[in-house]
């Protein structure tokens, strides 16, 4: 059996080989070979289209992600702490969770026009209820013993929040961030496809109209690479630092 650390590499290589074989057997423009996709990827990178579109989408992603996380966390913590408020708003949250993403996007464009802020708003509205629900659960299971400790020792409110409450919410926050990134990635493309004239979603739409599958796959590969980089360079190090006290 190969060593465990090589397994992911072998697994990835297998996937590419299978893809290669199928593309050779089918021999159709509907499934270009991996080399063809890489070639398009390189061309698009050199002529700048890929990077500029990726940049635009990433900017939108970052803005809507930050707004959704901050807003959702604040609301989630508040609802977790205040039972009456929670009972009142619970129905709203359930409705928001169940509105199809496409509906929020269309309504946002209809009500506010085909503008940047409407695009961001549509993404935020789709993501916030998820963050609220996750952080609300986290707040409900806060350790009462530690809150009592903070009260007896008269810790300032701010310190209670940063040193007693936040570390307990951390795993919930990270869950919200991870599922949030995945969700926003998917929604943002639809938002761009329907109402923006730049970004990955717009570009994919263009390739769709041209039936350029190699282009679509090239952008997909770039996409996956970016997500992996975010996980590897941002989320993992944060995780390791925050969990250093665990046995």
């Amino acid at each position, binding site marked *: 059996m190969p060593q465990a650390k090589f397994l992911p590499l072998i697994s990835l290589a297998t996937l590419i080989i299978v893809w290669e074989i199928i593309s050779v057997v089918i021999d159709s423009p509907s499934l270009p070979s991996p080399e063809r996709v890489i070639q398009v990827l390189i061309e698009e990178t050199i002529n700048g289209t890929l990077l500029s579109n990726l940049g635009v989408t990433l900017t939108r992603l970052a803005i809507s992600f930050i707004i959704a996380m901050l807003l959702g966390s604040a609301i989630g913590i508040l609802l977790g702490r205040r039972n009456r408020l929670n009972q009142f708003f619970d129905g709203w949250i359930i409705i928001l969770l169940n509105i199809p993403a496409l509906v929020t996007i269309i309504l946002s464009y209809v009500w506010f026009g085909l503008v940047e802020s409407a695009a961001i708003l549509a993404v935020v509205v789709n993501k916030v209820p998820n963050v609220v629900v996750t952080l609300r659960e986290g707040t409900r299971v806060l350790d009462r*013993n*530690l809150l*009592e*400790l903070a*009260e*007896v*020792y*008269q*810790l300032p409110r701010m*310190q209670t929040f940063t*040193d*007693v409450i936040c*570390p307990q919410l951390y795993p919930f926050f990270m869950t919200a961030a991870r599922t949030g990134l995945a969700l926003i990635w998917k929604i943002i493309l639809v938002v761009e496809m329907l109402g923006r004239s730049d970004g990955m979603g717009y570009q994919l739409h263009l390739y769709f109209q041209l039936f350029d599958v190699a282009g679509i796959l090239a952008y997909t590969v770039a996409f996956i690479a970016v997500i992996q980089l975010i996980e590897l360079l941002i989320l993992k190090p944060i995780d390791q630092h*925050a969990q*250093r*006290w*665990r*046995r």
Partner: protein
Amino acid sequence: MASVTAVNIHIRSKSFHRTDGGQKQLVIRQLEFSVRSGEFLCLVGPSGCGKTTLLHLIAGLDKQFDGNISFNEQDVPPLVGYVFQEPRLLPWRTVRDNIDLVLKPNRPHEDVDRLLENMGLGQVQDVYPERLSLGMSRRVALARAFAIQPDLLLMDEPFVSLDAPTARNVHALLSRVWHQRPHTVIFVTHDLREAIRLADRLVFLSNPPMRVVTDIPVDIPRADRHLPDKIDAFRRQLATRHPKIRDLI
């Protein structure tokens, strides 16, 4: 210098609503006693009688009761050090950081380095609590309470599950800290020997609804408290003189 706090406790009733929506459960009825400033008072009672509830009321963690608890010589509530039954350390902060967290910038506090050294915690100050034994965690919780130099120290069976030598050390340390800097202590235990060894006065509590059964000063000189004979003699004497508390002894 922190002022010394006396506590007057008068609780007409304290009850808990049962979570299943059933009847109210009366935990405390007509409980009244005072703690003099600088006094070391032990509350002795059967387990489950409501001692922890009482400490929560005194600490101000639970305000749902009929009666009043007042702290004299103080307009503001006193600074309370509370050693809970469980250590309640923040797992994401090292031993040292757990103690530093509760220090008040505008109030005098113990020299944390010396305190940790005295309590045998000098070696572990950079360790996270999950790596400590329960006995060590309890000592950290004690150090945290001592560190703030509280006006009032509440202790809820803090020495349960310490091994005998450690318990002796910590007893001695508690006595020393208390002598160096006078402050009021309310100490809950069901171990009568421990109570006699440490306290100025014992307050015996009944089964729920809890009230004071009797109130007995401990007249053994502090210097003789380490002698088991003296402690046992006092205990036997209690049993013969106070038949009401015989089942607690």
